[in-house]
């Protein structure tokens, strides 16, 4: 009880200090100069209509490469931590088999969900979305199949190969930019008409690679978690 009271007191004090600090930050007014620059020059520089995508993939492309690496490390770390961990008292746990509705529906939904994921990452430079959400949608399609079909699995060999190929594509595109345009991850393709599907240079290529990478990584991660819990 006393512990809880102290914790509450601490939380209240921290909240008050945070509020006092945040009260000095005006809400709803422009704050950064760099954001204005990106907005004004983004379409001219890179040809992508979605400025957030342009920032993530090209202006701060190196940062995104590091982020993809962190994701890869976390997925590998999860595989390592869980390696050798298997459910021992398998008989004790009651399992309810998935119902007929679930099995039929997921079979129907699986290809469509993957198609939707692909749509999200291919249109990353035009609409909200991109490689990361698209990859997560693809992984959710696999999650549906894992939930409804006990025997069905994504072979680790294939997820690993897809992931490695997608990661290599990302780096190779960056290196081509270094060779052709003079700096790593520089745009070397024509910019096209802003708003068209084939525009924005290398943004769709990189986001497709990221979509495949995130999708296969998260699928492998789910597969790892599933092998240990079933």
């Amino acid at each position: 009880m006393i512990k809880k009271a102290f914790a509450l007191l601490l939380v209240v004090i921290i909240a008050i200090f945070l509020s006092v600090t945040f009260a000095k930050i005006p809400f709803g007014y422009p704050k950064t100069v760099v954001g204005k620059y990106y907005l004004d020059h983004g379409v001219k520089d890179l040809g992508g209509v979605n400025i957030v995508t342009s920032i993530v993939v090209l202006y701060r492309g190196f940062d995104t490469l590091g982020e993809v690496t962190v994701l890869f490390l976390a997925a590998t770390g999860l595989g390592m931590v869980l390696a050798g961990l298997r459910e021992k008292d398998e008989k004790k746990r009651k399992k309810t088999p998935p119902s007929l509705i679930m099995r039929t529906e997921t079979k129907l939904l699986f290809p469509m969900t993957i198609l939707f994921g692909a749509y999200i990452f291919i249109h990353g430079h035009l609409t909200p979305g991109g490689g990361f959400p698209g990859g997560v949608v693809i992984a959710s399609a696999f999650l549906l199949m894992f939930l409804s079909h006990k025997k069905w699995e994504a072979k680790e060999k294939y997820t690993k190969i897809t992931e490695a190929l997608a990661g290599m594509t990302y780096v190779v595109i960056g290196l081509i930019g270094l060779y052709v345009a003079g700096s790593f991850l520089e745009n070397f393709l024509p910019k096209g008409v802003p708003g068209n599907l084939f525009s924005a240079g290398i943004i769709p290529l990189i986001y497709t690679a990221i979509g495949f990478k995130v999708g296969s990584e998260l699928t492998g991660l789910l597969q790892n978690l599933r092998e240990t819990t079933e």
Partner: protein
Amino acid sequence: MIYGQVIFYGASVALFAIGLYAILVKRNLIKILLGLSLIEGAVNLFLINIGYIWGKTAPILSNKELLAHPSAKAVDPVPQALVLTAIVIGVAVTALALSIIMRIYETHGTLNVDKIKELRW
């Protein structure tokens, strides 16, 4: 306009406080992880709030009007790009933490931090 600060910054402060309380008081490891995720959400919300500008729209310049005067019509895109990064990292870190929790459950047979003797010092 003061109410923006109160509502939007207040929401992120409240989320942060709830998450911190969960971390301090709860004894179950999974609940502690939930508290961490709440704090992460609070930080993401705060970053997005910082980038908002009254009366402006999303930084996707999909029509002519927006293309003509982007910075007069669209909000700050930089915090949104940062949050996009942070969300993905958050998912990965949560999955890794969950796997470590599964390991702890296997070796100790409990998720209660008070009962895990090796953590005491």
